[in-house]
């Protein structure tokens, strides 16, 4: 349990930092409960920047059908944890 929580925290922290980098905003302004499209200034290009960075880092595939179901950064973290466990 502890290990999986630690892994989730590590993925969350990495994704938050990637989001801040791509959007060129302070990491302090990004929290995992924020809605990716509605609360953060993502356009399509920046969103795919995030998706591809995450795919490359964790060696997973995030097809558009999966992305359609993701609303918040927490949702993205859950999906990445789920997919990376399957690999």
């Amino acid at each position: 349990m502890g290990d999986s929580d630690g892994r989730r925290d590590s993925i969350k922290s990495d994704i938050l930092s990637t989001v801040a980098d791509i959007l060129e905003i302070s990491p302090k302004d990004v929290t995992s409960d924020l809605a990716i499209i509605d609360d953060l200034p993502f356009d399509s290009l920046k969103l795919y920047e995030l998706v591809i960075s995450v795919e490359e880092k964790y060696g997973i595939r995030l097809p558009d059908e999966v992305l359609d179901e993701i609303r918040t950064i927490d949702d993205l973290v859950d999906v990445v944890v789920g997919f990376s466990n399957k690999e």
Partner: protein
Amino acid sequence: MSEEEQMSEALVRIFENVVLTEEKSLQAGYFKDLSIAEMHTLTAIGPYEARTMTNTAEDLGITTGTLTVAIDRLVKKGYVHRERDLHDKRIVRISLTHNGKLACRMNSKFHRVLAKHILAGYDEADRQHLLDLVNEVDEYVEQQLRRYDSSENVRATAREVAKDTGKEKK
């Protein structure tokens, strides 16, 4: 106008307008330095595993020689990474760079949004009916293509790649 003429004109117009819209969206977007033929080459390579030149050329319906010229340009533009197989030096593997993946995903999104908007005007039953009819048309055209399939027969993408290559040489 006969039904055949209406169908024929609509098919040609849809094909041309989709390609034209795609081209204009490229020119207006983030990937101005890519032609539509180059974008289709990136799509054929795909955003994930590295592919061989031979398989990619087969998918595009072009010769490996023509693909090599197109890949040279895409490598220079920073969209494609090319390397020799570690175990068999005769095999060249190509994959998309980070920017290549971005362009490929953005282009897929373009097609997805177009399809989404076309389907949005119909209720569920009509959407399914439309999809069934489009699939039948697609299957019939595929059958016709297979009748003529040979290394001499190239798809529209291949013609575009060849045309672009010709322009580059002049």
